[in-house]
């Protein structure tokens, strides 16, 4: 059987490949931006589906009306959920969904034929959505500044640096997890089942629905160990000033450890998956 992996040319050296990627990347990004602009209505609808933090904010506001919950009073909840919304919108992507589709209907074949690794292509697709995402996020950030300027991590330059690094880390961690999840589609008919479960677990343990501090003990213990907090809660907590510089630095190290681990695992699973992949008619 002639799988797509057999047909691919021999792997070039790392330096050659990197040079190739660097040359192709600006074009890939331009195409990506053009696509996002062309499907802007669709893009906006996708963005609007991220409305759960606002509902949770309304809920916690009602709860905190008669006194704060732990460290969280009403203003803190507002800052937290606006932060969640901003970070989530800036870093999320739907790679697993796209990969599952492309593996099933064979669109992946054309990507495998290109002279750069398909993962760079996917990364370019999702990176190029970032300018549009920032555009959408900016009103939320303004709202965040207006409502809770005093609480934000702007007094300490080291926290600002950590915040920047944590956002990049969060993007990479989400991206690699999505590759990992999407690769399941190489092995089973549809990755949607595991994907749905992942969304559920992520919603609880990433701080998307509930600030991790407010969780009951056992759930908080789980959240401390699981990688989900580094995708969302960690940058948000840094942003709204809930973390001390020391804690933030420690968490940053843990986050990047997870990034490296997930990245390595994702590449392994992807490579094994592509070997199994027998393309359908493209």
């Amino acid at each position: 059987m002639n799988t797509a992996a057999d047909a691919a040319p021999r792997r070039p050296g790392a330096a050659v490949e990197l040079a190739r990627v660097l040359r192709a990347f600006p074009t890939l990004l331009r195409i990506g931006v053009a696509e996002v602009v062309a499907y802007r209505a669709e893009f906006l609808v996708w963005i609007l589906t991220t409305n759960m933090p606002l509902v949770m904010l309304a809920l916690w506001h009602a709860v905190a009306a008669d006194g704060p919950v732990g460290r969280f009073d009403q203003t803190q909840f507002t800052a937290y959920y606006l932060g969640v919304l901003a970070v989530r919108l800036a870093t999320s992507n739907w790679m697993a969904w796209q990969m599952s589709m492309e593996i099933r209907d064979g669109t992946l074949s054309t990507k495998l034929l290109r002279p750069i690794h398909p993962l760079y292509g996917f990364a370019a697709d999702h990176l190029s959505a970032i300018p549009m995402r920032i555009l959408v996020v900016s009103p939320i950030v303004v709202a965040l500044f207006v409502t809770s300027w005093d609480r934000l991590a702007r007094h300490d330059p080291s926290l600002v640096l950590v915040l920047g690094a944590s956002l990049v880390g969060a993007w990479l961690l989400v991206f690699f997890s999505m590759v990992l999840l999407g690769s399941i589609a190489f092995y089973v008919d549809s990755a949607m089942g595991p994907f749905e479960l992942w969304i559920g677990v992520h919603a609880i343990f990433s701080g998307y629905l509930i600030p991790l501090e407010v969780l009951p003990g056992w759930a908080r213990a789980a959240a401390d160990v699981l990688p989900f907090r580094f995708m969302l809660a960690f940058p948000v907590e840094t942003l709204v000033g809930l973390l001390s510089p020391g804690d933030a630095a420690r968490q940053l190290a843990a986050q990047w450890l997870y990034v490296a681990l997930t990245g390595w695992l994702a590449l392994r699973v992807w490579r094994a998956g592509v070997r199994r992949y027998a393309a359908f008619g493209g």
Partner: protein
Amino acid sequence: MPPSLQSPLAFATRYAGLFRVQMRMATLAAMQYRVDFVVRGLIAVLWSALTLIPLVVVFGVRRQVAGWSFEEALVVVGWFTLLRAVLEGAVSPSLTAVVEHVRKGTLDFVLLKPADAQFLVSTAKFEPWRIVDAVAAVVVFCYAFTKMGHWPSIAQVATGLVFLALAVVILYSIWILVVSAAFWVVKVDNLSYLFGSLFDVGRWPIDVLRGVWRGTLMMVFTFVFPVALMTTYPALALLGRLDAKTAALALGGGVLFAVIARRVWRRALAMYTSASS
């Protein structure tokens, strides 16, 4: 023969027969994937359990939120779970297929059949494993009422069931409206995700939104996108906290919704030009 020339009884019998056939075909198709049935059922149970965590956390902090106790809020969650089972099991699979039909032009084959097109497309596909969700909903109801220590009366259950029917009608009508949009803009599969995310609001009693923008958001979710009618009001009915006037108004609103949806669907269908032509 057009329906208007038949007696209503013959009309009803004919469509009941058609419904049976469609159901059998859908079940046969779904039963081919038995492993899928079990796996997805299990995932659904896990999911439902996960979605209870925010509720447990919130009511771990306060005994009452926006006038609702934990047990009462659980009744809302029960309705939500039940309706999601209906939505994902019976409503959205068929209607997602319509979008595909419109895009590919295969709706022609449906339109050529001598039966109402809306009926045919709406009963084309079911996902029987969602029954697991419905069972989970019943478990939630039982738990909530056992903890409260009193069960709803027959009349309250009857009102609840009427509201269930109403909720299904509204759910279905909104979906028909979304699908009708496919005739104009073609690509609406992500509208279904938006729909799903807005429907998620129904997990909570609508009163938690009372404080947002002086209740504007609450009005939106009661009248424009009536999630409140689907989960909070039925829960109020079961708890015996719904007065007759509100109930009557809600029912009237639901029927109005269905009528509008039917008219929009007819309009949209008139717009349809097959993809090949």
